[in-house]
Every structure is written in C-alpha cells, then in structure tokens.
C-alpha cells in the first residue's frame, strides 16, 4: 500500500496539486481519474519520486519515501514498475533486451535465468516469441504490452500505469485493462492507474480518486461512482454520448 499525505506541488507560481491525501490499497487496482490537465501525471510522478513534492509525504508500506537518501530511494525504486504514457521503451534495444534490462542492471542472474524470466513476462502479456522485434516494429498496443512486461520483470510490489490505454481502440484497451487487473491480483501488487477512460473506470476501478484542478474532489469505487451526487464528477463521467444515454 502507498499513502499520499497532504501532497502539494507547484511549478513556478502555478500550483498543480493542492493538499492531496489518499490511501492506495494493496492487491487492488487504484485509479486516479480526472480531466486532461487536472494533474494526474504530475501526481503519479510525485508518487514515484520523479518530481519532488513541495509539501507532504509519501509512504511505501510505512516507509517514508520523500525523506529518504538517494541510496535508500534506489532500493524502493527497484520495487516499483512503471508504465509510461508513451511506453518509453528503449528504442535501440529489442523487445527481449528491453525486458531484460532491469534484470541485467540489478540481478546477478545468468543469461538463461534472465531469458526464462523474460519469456515468462512476455507470455503474461500474450507476446510469446516476439523477443527479436525492435520497438519501431511494434503497434501501439504491443508497445504498451511490452512496457508492462518490462515493468513487471523485477516482480515489483508497486505498479504505476500512466494512461495505459490512451490511443488504443476500445477492444485492445479492454485487453490491457484486464491484463493490469490480473497481474495486480495474481501478484498482490499495489497498482495505481491514471485514466480518463470511463470504460476502465467501470471495469477495474476498485478504489478511485477523482482529481479536479489539482484537488482531490471525490473518492469511491466503480459502483459508487455511478451514484455519486457530485456535479463535477457527474459531468466527467457522463460526458460521452454513450454514458449519457445509459443514464
């Protein structure tokens, strides 16, 4: 589990996050939802330590993260897997080398052991045998899946996904959502997903934080989200034609 405690973050004189506190639960898919520009990516980058918070603290299973030294942070970082909005695969490496990279960097395993792990991860994301492809030869959905495989290769306790299904068709997006949800439950990870896709919200939203203009506006889950009597949240949820009609 991860605890965000009173996090604030500004860039220059522009305040992006205001006093956000949230409890991300273990073994569940925790969602951060909100409009484009509401601060989801900034919040996630604060949580993983890519940005330093101005105020507040982040605890990983009780270990205060923000105040740790560089070396100790590094140790927690090896327990973190992250899927970036664009995949962020290393483009001069093959699929196999990408997934093997964290293993080569942080373990002393032999090539055979590492390859076994790589193949296991590839199988987990339904990409068996695609080891030799370069990132430029992959489709958008495949990139996300390889990125997931890389994120889970060191068997992380915490998995972060920034818009895992942006730019994908609804079916492929659904497959990615399922994949994330399965991995989370199989390995009992603390998973945090940024999304503005209502399908994901209703499918895998076990614990939801709704961010509006940098503030935590509402919390709940995929069931309560439909019944919430919060105007801003409702505008967000029922923005599409389809959801409007369903309502």
């Amino acid at each position, binding site marked *: 589990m991860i605890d965000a405690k009173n996090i604030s973050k500004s860039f220059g004189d522009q305040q992006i996050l205001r006093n956000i506190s949230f409890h991300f639960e273990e073994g569940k898919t925790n969602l951060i939802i909100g409009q484009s520009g509401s601060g989801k990516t900034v919040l996630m980058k604060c949580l993983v330590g890519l940005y330093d918070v101005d105020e507040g603290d982040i605890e990983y299973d009780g270990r205060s993260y923000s105040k740790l030294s560089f070396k100790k942070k590094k140790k927690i970082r090896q327990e*973190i897997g992250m899927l970036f909005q664009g995949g962020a695969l290393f*483009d001069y490496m093959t699929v196999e080398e990408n997934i093997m990279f964290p293993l080569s*960097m*942080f373990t002393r395993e032999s090539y055979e052991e590492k390859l076994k792990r790589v193949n296991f991860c590839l199988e987990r994301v339904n990409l068996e045998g695609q080891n030799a492809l370069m990132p430029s030869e992959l489709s958008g959905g495949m990139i996300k899946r390889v990125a997931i495989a890389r994120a889970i290769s060191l068997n992380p306790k915490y998995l972060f996904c920034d818009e895992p299904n942006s730019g994908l068709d609804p079916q492929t997006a659904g497959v990615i959502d399922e994949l994330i949800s399965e991995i989370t439950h199989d390995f009992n990870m603390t998973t945090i997903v940024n999304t503005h896709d209502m399908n994901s919200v209703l499918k895998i939203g076990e614990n939801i934080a709704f961010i509006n203009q940098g503030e935590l506006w509402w919390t709940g889950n995929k069931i309560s989200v439909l019944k919430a009597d919060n105007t801003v949240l409702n505008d967000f949820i029922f923005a599409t034609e389809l959801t409007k009609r369903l309502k």
Partner: protein
Amino acid sequence: MLQVFRKPDKGKMFGKQLMVEFQNLGVDSIGIVAVISTFMGAVVAIQTAYNIDNPFIPMTMVGFTTRQSVILEFAPTVISLILAGKVGSRIASEIGTMRVTEQIDALQIMGVNSANFLVFPKVIAAVIFNPILVIFSMFLGLAGGWLACISFGLVSSADYIIGIQSWFEPYTVFYALIKTIVFAYLIVTISAYQGYSISGGSLDVGNASTKGVVYSSIFIILFNLILTQLLL
C-alpha cells in the same frame, strides 16, 4: 553534472554500453575524418608551395610547413570541430529524444542513475577514440599533402619527405592530443547536457541538437586559444 561521474551501477552493463559508443561515436566517424584530412593536407601543401616563390627558401619547407600546420592545428582543431557537428548533434538528439519520450524517466524509475548510464560511456569513448582519430588524421593529412605535391609537380617526393622529417618535436603531437582530449570532453558533455535538460516536445530535440553543435564549437575555439597559450 556530478552524477555523471559516479561509479557505474553495474560494470558489465557499462562495458557493453562503452562498446556501443565506440562504434557510434568513433568507428562511424572514420570515413569522414579520412576524407577531410586527406583534402586538408593537400590544400595546405599546395598553398604553401604557391607562396614560396623566393629561390632562397628550399622546397623542403613545403613538407615542413604542412606537417606543422596539420599536427598543431588542422588535425586536432578542425577534426574536433567536424566531430562536434557529427557527434555532438547525434548525442544531443539521442539523449533529447530519450528525454521527451520518457525513456530517461523510465531509467530513473528503475533506480538507474540515468546521467551516469547515458553520458559516462560517451565521455570515455570520445576521450579515448578522438585522439586515435586525430592521429589517423595527421597521417592522412601528410599523405594528402604528399599526393598533391607529386601529382601537381609542385615539390619532389624526396624534398617533401625530407621536409616533413626536419626539426620534428614530439611535443607538438603531445600538445595536439591534449587539445583533442579536452575538445572531446567538451563536445560530449555540452551536447549531452543540451539533450538531457530538454523539457517539452520533439521540436525541442532539434533545438537542443543545434545548440549542442553551436556551443561545443564555440567552446572548442575558446579552449583552443587558452590551451595554446598554456601549452606552447
């Protein structure tokens, strides 16, 4: 900046990365260095030969002057400027692309010291390989001069060869190599910094790559003056 020179996270990965950089920054530049050096040597020899119209100056001076110019200035400085264009823009755009596509963030998240992982092997590769390129360039420059002299009948082969051997001071080569090493360091760190510190989109990658070349060229010219004052 200090992060760049920490001990690498993992020796084996560093070695692998270093090999890649030798290829990218060094071996790939051999062709352009060869062409430029040969022509450069030829032109220097021809110009010197035309300028000597006093019968009291022996024609061996052509070889001598060509050697001095090539070793002291043309090989180290001009080749470094060429490399600033070729290697500098490559480094800035490679690292800049990694920045905008969040690959650097991805390294950071894994707990990899990204500055060290990306820049240190490049610094080492350039500092080792650029002097090799420059020595190669010196030989080709002299060969180019020789070729020009005999094919245009300006100086006899024997005179040219006597010329390039006369009053040779090994210190000049040492001076040239010191310059080259400093320039190599400047090229890599300046252009890597330009790429690394981008925030924004792919347009900024182009800007960073231009800035990398321009700033490293300016610093090369500047340090050329400083080092020449100090060393000669």
